């Protein structure tokens, strides 16, 4: 690696302390032979439900949907413990299924890679997925298309599992777009609402922009290394030119931005809240949106060799964490507030992932805990909406803690976790990230710190507006607690939100992930870690206090006040991200397309039709020669004869 003294971020790799891990796969035996079943089960479920049709599968679709995911969870769990029992060097299990694409020297296999990283993801996806499936049985009970909903959910789980299990970039791409499709279908699940249909399309299209990065990245990987599989690439990654690695890193960052709703491709996530709430919990909080983080962490053997791309990841993460947090502060729609928060939290993960070996493990750790508490909160929000007749406006809530006690308590667990209340899971994971980012750069660290404060502010605001204060309910709303099938998953997730921090106990997570992402590196910090924890806690407390002072003490108006500061207006408008897209892309794009259509009709086709018209005009002129008089024809025949004779004479005379 070439050194760059101008860099803000000194690299440990340069000092030789960090070894980029190389993936050595061992054949799948024992329980690992069943790896493919983990994907196949939900895929089968989706196929049965979707091909069978809504009416025929109505009776059993929800049960089948849950059963397949629970089955996958069981296998994942067994596999996890099996992996736990292995040597650290044997923890990358490969399973070859079949050759997918084989063209010339291009080859991509349907092959699975089960290593500590994917193991954690499997647990998250199937575990949280199972809970959300169960919850959906209750949440979607009155929807006549519930069977189809479960079909889509299963499809999503299958695709997501493909994404994290594939051993090559093309397979990741398959899962990548598969989850995009499922997300599209689920956001637009209530597609009779035009807003849902538009949001679904927007999500897909924005994701496609990110997919450009994924596609080009995969191509560049192939062009550089002659293969798209992780293992061989990780072996020789160090020999590739830095420029290539930078390009790869930026391309995959583009992909990650799309999938994980990072600035500048963040605009779809808030709109995606049009989907049913379990979808928001599963796809747009816990799993799919974290795929970008997965991609960056999985490609650690690329990012470790390129500072520029890493810096880009850090910048994107930092900007997004603030961006999302600010948006979250202004939203009155409970789901959108949570979506802003999701964006912000993924920003943290991105930031961590961009820190390289200092942060990979913490990114994943935060990803897990976030998966727990954010799913918990989304489901809680769903439960609240369920109680409030699907009203999402927090200004119509208030004083719900008595009406929906279980939801309140579980939501509170999630709340404490996300703001980083000491001891709760979010405290451990976020604290580590802030600490590591301070090690990188004071500026980034400060941003992360401020983000934590804002997080505390807006989450407290959500909490206060929803569960405390005065009743501001709509007429005829009688809040009631949700059925057991919904509250049980809430309780489980709340427990995980509280206890998720245990994963860090004895540095379990970081050690576990070492074979996949390398050992954690540590900065020499100015203060001891506990000092950072203290600072973070103080900042959080400040955020909570501000929220209490502004929201908790005052009456909350039932309609949003309009004479507010510019910052609030901007935050309500998603910091003008959509407006920017519209002005910069959609409007000119529209005009360009209209112009092009006109050009095609009038220009390109005009040339064609013009030629036709010209010939028609010419023949119109020439046909006048055809007078119909035999004698003029005879005259022309004679003239021809004269010409022939003259020609003959001319030839003979010369």
């Amino acid at each position, binding site marked *: 690696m070439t050194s760059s003294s101008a860099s803000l971020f000194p690299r440990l790799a340069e000092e030789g302390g960090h070894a980029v891990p190389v993936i050595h796969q061992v054949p799948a035996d024992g329980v690992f032979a069943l790896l493919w079943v983990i994907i196949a089960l939900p895929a089968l479920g989706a196929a049965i439900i979707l091909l069978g049709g809504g009416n025929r599968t109505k009776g059993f679709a929800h049960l089948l949907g849950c059963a397949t995911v629970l089955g996958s969870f069981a296998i994942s769990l067994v596999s996890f413990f099996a992996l736990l029992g292995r040597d650290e060097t044997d923890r990358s299990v490969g399973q070859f299924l079949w050759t997918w694409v084989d063209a010339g020297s291009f080859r991509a296999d349907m092959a699975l890679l089960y290593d500590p990283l994917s193991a954690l993801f499997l647990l998250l996806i199937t575990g949280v997925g199972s809970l959300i499936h169960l919850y959906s049985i209750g949440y979607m009970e009155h929807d006549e298309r519930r069977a189809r909903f479960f079909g889509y959910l299963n499809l999503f789980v299958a695709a997501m599992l493909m994404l994290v299990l594939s051993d090559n970039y093309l397979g990741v791409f398959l899962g990548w777009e598969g989850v995009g499709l499922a997300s599209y279908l689920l956001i637009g699940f209530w597609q009779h609402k035009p807003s849902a249909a538009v949001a679904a399309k927007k999500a897909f299209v924005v994701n496609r922009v990110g997919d450009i990065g994924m596609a080009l990245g995969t191509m560049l990987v192939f062009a550089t290394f002659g293969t798209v599989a992780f293992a061989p690439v990780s072996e020789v990654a160090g020999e590739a030119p830095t420029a290539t690695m930078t390009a790869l890193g930026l391309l995959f960052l583009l992909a990650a931005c799309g999938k994980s709703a990072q600035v500048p491709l963040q605009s779809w996530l808030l709109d995606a809240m049009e989907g049913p709430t379990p979808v928001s919990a599963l796809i747009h909080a816990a799993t799919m949106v974290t795929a970008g983080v997965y991609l960056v962490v999985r490609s650690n053997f690329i990012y470790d060799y390129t500072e520029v791309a890493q810096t880009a990841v850090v910048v994107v993460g930092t900007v997004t964490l603030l961006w999302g947090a600010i948006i979250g502060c202004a939203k009155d729609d409970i789901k959108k507030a949570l979506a802003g928060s999701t964006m912000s939290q993924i920003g943290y993960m991105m930031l961590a992932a961009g820190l390289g070996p200092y942060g990979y493990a913490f990114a994943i750790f935060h990803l897990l805990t976030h998966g727990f508490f954010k799913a918990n909160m989304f489901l809680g929000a769903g439960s609240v909406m369920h109680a409030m007749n699907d009203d999402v406006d927090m200004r119509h809530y208030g004083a719900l803690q008595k009406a929906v006690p279980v939801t309140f308590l579980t939501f509170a667990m999630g709340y404490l976790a996300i703001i980083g209340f000491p001891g709760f899971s979010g405290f451990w994971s976020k604290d580590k990230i802030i600490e590591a980012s301070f090690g990188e750069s004071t500026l980034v660290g400060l941003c992360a710190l401020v983000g934590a404060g804002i997080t505390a502010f807006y989450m407290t605001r959500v909490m206060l507006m929803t569960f405390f204060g005065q009743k501001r309910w709509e007429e005829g709303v009688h809040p009631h607690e949700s059925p057991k099938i919904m509250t049980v998953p809430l309780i489980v997730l709340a427990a995980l939100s509280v206890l998720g921090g245990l994963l860090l106990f004895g540095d379990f997570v970081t050690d576990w992930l070492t074979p996949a992402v390398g050992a954690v590196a540590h900065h020499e910090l100015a203060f001891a870690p506990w000092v950072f924890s203290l600072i973070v806690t103080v900042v959080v407390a400040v955020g909570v206090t501000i929220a209490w002072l502004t929201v908790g003490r005052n009456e909350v108006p039932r309609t949003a006040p309009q004479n507010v500061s510019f910052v609030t207006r901007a935050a309500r408008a998603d910091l003008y991200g959509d407006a920017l897209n519209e002005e910069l892309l959609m409007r000119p794009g529209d005009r360009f397309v209209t112009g092009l259509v006109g050009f095609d009709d009038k220009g390109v086709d005009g040339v064609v039709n013009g030629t036709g018209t010209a010939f028609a005009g010419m023949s119109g002129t020439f046909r006048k020669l055809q007078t119909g*008089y035999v004698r003029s024809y005879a005259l022309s025949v004679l003239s021809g004869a004269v010409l022939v004779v003259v020609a003959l004479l001319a030839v003979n005379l010369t």
Partner: protein
Amino acid sequence: MDPTPFIGLSAILFTIGCIGVLVRRNAIVIFMCVELMLNASNLALVTFARVHGNLDGQVAAFFVMVVAAAEVVVGLAIIMTIFRTRRSASVDDASLLKY
């Protein structure tokens, strides 16, 4: 006998026939002019037969006559038919073959 005047006469008659076809309008007269052209060529054929000293030219002239006879039969029948339907023997009246 010098054959050249014969050939010249043939050419002159042929030309007159041509012009006749072009300027006359009565279909029957036009037909006569065509006959004149055929005859003019016959004269040339016969003359060349004498020049070359074999009878092939005469045979050709004979064939021309036969063909002319057939042509006249059909042509006049056509003129009759047209006359019957259109009450006119002028070729300018049969000008349907136009734009």
